[in-house]
Structure formats: C-alpha cells, structure tokens
C-alpha cells in the first residue's frame, strides 16, 4: 500500500516540467524527460533520496515521489504513434517545477 506523502508540493492534476539540468552521480531522472512538460498523475509517497543513498548517505530528507504523465508527442519529435499514447515516469519532487513559461529553477 502506498502511503500518502506529507508536505508534497504538487497535487494530482498539476502541470509540471522536469528540470533541465545536469547532475553528477546516481540520478534516477531519465534524460529524455528533462525539460519536458507533463502532469502529476499520482503522489506515490515519500522515499529516501537515491542520489544520497548511492553515495552511502542516509537518503534524508526523504523526497516525495510522483507518477508523472507525459504525452508521447511532447517527448519525441515526430512521434508516429497515436496522439493518445502516454508515458509515465516516477520522478522525485526536486526534479520537478511548476510548468510556467520561460521559468528555470535552480539545480536540484
């Protein structure tokens, strides 16, 4: 059973954008989602931060994790499948920002 995330910044239905930044080390945000617009499909709970765990850290503070939906046509130029095709990726909160035009947030 997935537990609710206390203090989650985003709610299901929110429009978000994946931060388009480079970060060294063990990052679980796939490159192909960076900078892409999506929406919060679900809040999945809070989990230890894998970027810390991979370096022997405790993964604290834990990060809210979201199931983020993307339209395939937004991810890939020239996508040939149905415009209804979607892709879901589980993304930690510090890799997400509200979808606003021309606004870039700082590196996670």
């Amino acid at each position, binding site marked *: 059973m*997935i537990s609710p995330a206390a203090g989650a910044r985003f709610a299901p239905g929110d429009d978000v954008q994946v931060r388009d930044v480079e970060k060294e080390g063990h990052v*679980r945000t*796939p490159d192909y989602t960076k900078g892409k617009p999506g929406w919060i499909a679900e809040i999945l709970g809070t989990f230890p931060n894998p970027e810390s765990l991979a370096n022997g850290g405790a993964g604290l503070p834990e990060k809210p994790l979201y199931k983020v939906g993307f339209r395939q046509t937004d991810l890939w130029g020239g*996508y040939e499948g*149905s415009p209804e095709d*979607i*892709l879901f990726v589980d993304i930690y909160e510090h890799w997400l920002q509200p979808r606003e035009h021309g606004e870039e947030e700082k590196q996670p």
Partner: protein
Amino acid sequence: MSENGHDHKHEEPRHDRSRWAARIRAVEELLVEKGVFTKEEVKAQVEYMEARTYENGARLVARAWVDPAFKKRLLSDTRAAAAELGIDASGPTEFVTVENTDEVHNVIVCTLCSCYPRAILGRPPDWYKSFAYRSRVVVEPREVLREFGLELPEDKPIAVHDSSADLRYLVLPQRPEGTEGMVEDELAALVTRDSLIGTDVPRTARETSRV
C-alpha cells in the same frame, strides 16, 4: 541504413561473459572476507530468487479474473493481494499492478537499468535488460510490440511505464474472450510471462494457432 537494416545499433555479442563472472566472484569473495555478508546469505538470496517465477503473476491474474473483489485489492495493494496467495513480496520496494482495458494497453520498462517486480516474478527475461528494448520501447512502443508479435489497433492508446524509482510494475492483462467456462488453473495457464510485462497478451489455444 546501417548494416543491420534499420537505424539503430545493436548490442555487441557478449564474448566476455566469463570475464565478468570471474570478476563478480572476486568481488563476492572480497565482500565475504570483509564481513559485509556471508556465503550462506548469498546462497539464501540465490534460492529466494530462483524460487520465484512469472507463474506467481499468472496466479494473481487468474484470481483477479474470477474474483472482482480480489482484483480490486490487487490494483490497490499488490503486495497484500500477493500475500493472500502465499507470495511473499515484503521488502523495501512497492509493487503496483496496472490494468489493461479496452481504453489502454500498458507496457513496462526500466530505461535506466532493469527494475522489475523480482520479489513476485523472479528474474526478468534477458531482453528486458537489453539496450535495444530499454531504449526503443519508450520511443516506438507500437513497433516494438509488433516485433514481439503483438499487433495493437492503431488507435488503441498505449501507456508505457518507465519504472526507474522505488516502484515495480506488473500488468493485469485482459481476460481473453471465449474463456467463460474455464476454471482458475486453466486461466493461469494462459498467462505468459511477457503478458505480465505488456509485450504479449494471453490467448486461448484457438487464438494461438491462428497467430
């Protein structure tokens, strides 16, 4: 066009498998020597993994097909539903079952490595870990499914789940037509390993002979 007839590079054949195996054995011995874990723990972990196969998933699916209340529990709390059938999926990872419907066909991948619901289904097939599958199914899912022999209608929406964080996904396929008279064990026998990943769908014997 490249030499393999399409526009992506295939993985090199693994000539060096034994070299990697030797390296893993060396690392294992070192970790045992340093007291990080014992040989018995390694053996227990291997046995744990060997004891799990996709047949666990087939049992979950067949039960969900015959028991709507179980299906509801499977979709809302996969780990607890698995425990009901004696499948121990306890541990730090969460499990989520996604349902195929007339409106959507689900496919699972882990583009970053090989995340898979191992505690339930055991080890993933080799192709699931291949660079070709991981890189292509997110970009051209319909084409990849076609290569698996699964032809979906052009207008059937596909949802690809890239499971690269703390959740592991399995697919609840649709029950094939013409199986109304079947009992649970017969239904479970229709559920293939690949249908739990979404690269196949369960078929009746009659449908299989047509393919």
